[in-house]
């Protein structure tokens, strides 16, 4: 059976499963459409949250980010998991007790202000739309690579599938398809990782293999990797090279940004009880950790395999003991066919600059050690000859690099699609809920009937899918800034306002609004200063380099500073203005205790 047929079968089977679930889980009321009628078990919700959370970026890009930077990018691993501790202790149980449907709704009720609610809606829309574009392009890219269709055709197929289960089932349909998508994506991620860990270290668990001993040389894997990459002029893999302050602030921005993402928060509205919301955050992190503890092993091992492909001597840690891989081998050898496959996509490329028939891969900009300098002089190197290596192929090409069977490749394709589609659906639900519940029912037509709102929710969902697809086909400049924009805004606006709403009974409307505006504006101005106004290239006022950053704080880390500004401004303004009315203080008292969460279901 050809690889194409296999891919088609596996992806087709996964899609049939999602559609089957969609038909079974149709939504009949707004409570079902927005919150799956609060009947999802904590373990199921944990699994759905994991799929909702782990996007195309987690599945495809994260291992590559770690592979080519090493220790410094541990910030992603800690940042994208540590937020769940904050969710479990600071937000999820109380918002579940509040018992309504959307994040802006809490902001509006707690701060007795339609203005606060609208600011919440605007932040939610910017965050979720930025985020969803990346998912849609991820769907298109995966389709075009594995099913030989154009990426725009792939995008429309993906959009049609999300349309079926999100419009029919709302939160209920999305929850159960996310559970299925989690299972597909975790299998897809784990199988190649286990095979590769076995090949390199003899460990079944990639998590321990990373710290194990390399079979080929009987030396520690990480020590060998450090040796090999520094031989080639790259920075050591396990070393700490970046600014400590920026690492701390970036990790914090990712953590509080995660806790402030509306599409993650609303998942905790679906469990029956407050105690379930706490427990469910733990289960979500268990399921996320199954991927996040494997990803650093995948990254390190893929980096090692790539290096050992280019320099066969590196396999035993003796980088220059054998000549570099030859052009002839790359073009003919059966086990290197993946290089030819990926060259077609433009994600991998090479060029024999000095015409010696060998492809030498090294860091031409790095601090050349004596050994490397000697090699460069001796072989007359004109520069690094592996001219393009895209981060993303570290996961996508992994099964091919390790020569795994065709069905593994097909499962990885289905897994990449599951990761992108499940996150897209969660984001689209957050977007359509904000439109139908916060804008239409909350502001434009409060008298709308239950049936009317359900219809409005479905129409908003359909329109959101259409808009996301069109933006995915023509990604605007800001789409590449998901980390800075989505996490920066969630960290500087939504997380602080929710936390103060719960933990400070004294916080009033004036403080919350001033805090949100100050946090968001400060963060956006800082990002635009270095990335260009509205991300239009050439309009940045300062170069986007570590030397130009204020105290060495990168634009993507500034969300943490934005959050501090939000807290400080909110505190100052609320101290100077009158305290919130008695009924709001009662609301704060009531969300702090679990008893009575079931009753709030009636809405």
């Amino acid at each position: 059976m050809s690889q194409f047929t296999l891919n088609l079968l596996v992806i087709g089977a996964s899609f049939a499963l999602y559609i089957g679930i969609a038909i079974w889980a149709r939504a009949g009321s707004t409570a079902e459409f927005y919150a799956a009628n609060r009947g999802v078990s904590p373990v199921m919700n944990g699994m759905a949250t994991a799929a909702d959370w782990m996007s195309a970026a987690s599945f495809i890009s994260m291992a590559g980010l770690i592979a080519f930077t090493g220790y410094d990018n541990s910030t992603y691993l800690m940042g994208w998991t540590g937020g769940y501790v904050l969710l479990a202790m600071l937000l999820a149980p109380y918002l579940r007790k509040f018992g309504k449907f959307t994040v802006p709704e809490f902001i509006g009720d707690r701060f007795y202000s339609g203005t606060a609610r609208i600011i919440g809606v605007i932040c939610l829309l910017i965050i979720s739309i930025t985020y969803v574009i990346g998912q849609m392009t991820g769907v298109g890219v995966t389709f075009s690579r594995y099913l030989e269709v154009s990426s725009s055709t792939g995008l429309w197929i993906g959009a049609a599938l999300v349309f079926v289960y999100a419009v029919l089932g709302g939160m209920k349909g999305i929850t159960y398809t996310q559970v299925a998508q989690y299972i597909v994506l975790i299998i897809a991620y784990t199988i190649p990782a286990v095979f590769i860990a076995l090949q390199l270290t003899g460990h079944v668990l990639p998590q321990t293999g990373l710290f194990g001993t390399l079979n080929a040389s009987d030396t520690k894997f990480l020590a060998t990797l450090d040796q090999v990459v520094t031989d080639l002029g790259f920075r050591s893999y396990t070393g700490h090279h970046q600014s400590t302050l920026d690492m701390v602030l970036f990790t914090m921005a990712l953590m509080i940004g995660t806790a402030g993402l509306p599409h993650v928060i609303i998942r905790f509205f679906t469990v029956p009880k407050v105690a379930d919301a706490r427990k469910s955050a733990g289960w979500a992190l268990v399921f996320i950790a199954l991927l996040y503890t494997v990803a650093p092993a995948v990254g390190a091992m893929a980096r090692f395999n790539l290096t050992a492909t280019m320099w066969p001597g590196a396999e035993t840690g003796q980088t220059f003991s054998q000549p570099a891989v030859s052009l002839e081998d790359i073009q003919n050898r059966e086990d290197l066919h993946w290089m030819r496959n990926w060259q077609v996509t433009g994600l991998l490329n090479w060029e024999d600059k000095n015409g010696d028939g060998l492809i030498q891969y090294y860091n031409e900009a790095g601090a050349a050690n004596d050994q490397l300098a000697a090699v460069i002089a001796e072989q007359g190197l004109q520069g690094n000859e592996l001219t393009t290596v895209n981060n993303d192929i570290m996961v996508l090409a992994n099964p091919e690099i390790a020569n795994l069977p065709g069905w593994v490749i097909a499962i990885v394709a289905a897994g990449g699609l599951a990761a992108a589609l499940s996150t897209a659906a969660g984001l689209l639900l957050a977007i359509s809920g904000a439109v139908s519940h916060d804008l239409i029912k909350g502001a434009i037509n409060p008298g709308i009937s239950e049936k009317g709102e359900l219809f409005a929710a479905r129409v908003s969902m359909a329109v959101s899918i259409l808009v996301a697809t069109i933006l995915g086909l023509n990604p605007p400049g800001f789409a590449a800034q998901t980390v800075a924009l989505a996490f920066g805004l969630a960290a500087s606006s939504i997380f602080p306002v929710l936390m103060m709403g719960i933990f400070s009974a004294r916080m009033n409307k004036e403080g919350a609004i001033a805090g949100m505006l100050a946090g968001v504006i400060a963060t956006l101005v800082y990002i635009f200063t270095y990335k260009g106004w509205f991300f239009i290239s050439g309009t940045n006022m300062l170069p986007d380099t570590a030397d130009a950053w204020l105290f060495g704080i990168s634009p993507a880390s500034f969300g943490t500073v934005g959050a501090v500004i939000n807290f400080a401004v909110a505190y100052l303004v609320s101290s100077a203005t009158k305290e919130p009315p008695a009924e709001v203080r009662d609301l704060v008292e009531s969300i702090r205790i679990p008893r009575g969460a079931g009753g709030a279901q009636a809405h």
Partner: protein
Amino acid sequence: MSDRQSSNAYWQANLRLIWRCMIIWALVSYGFGIILRPLVAGISVGGTDLGFWFAQQGSILVFIVLIFFYAWRMNRLDAEHGVDE
């Protein structure tokens, strides 16, 4: 009034528990994983040091334990203060 006092004591106990958990949360990630890494660099773990392990594995495992610990202690607190469901 006694109801409010009980819920106040419950809330204070919750806040103390949150603080304790947050200290551990920060210690394993920002502490051992980043800032204190040089301090624990002497402890070697599989070809690198303890700080690297905390940054790429340990912190995540501790986060999981923390959430379940918090959930378990809160269930007890809920019952003790009569605010459970």
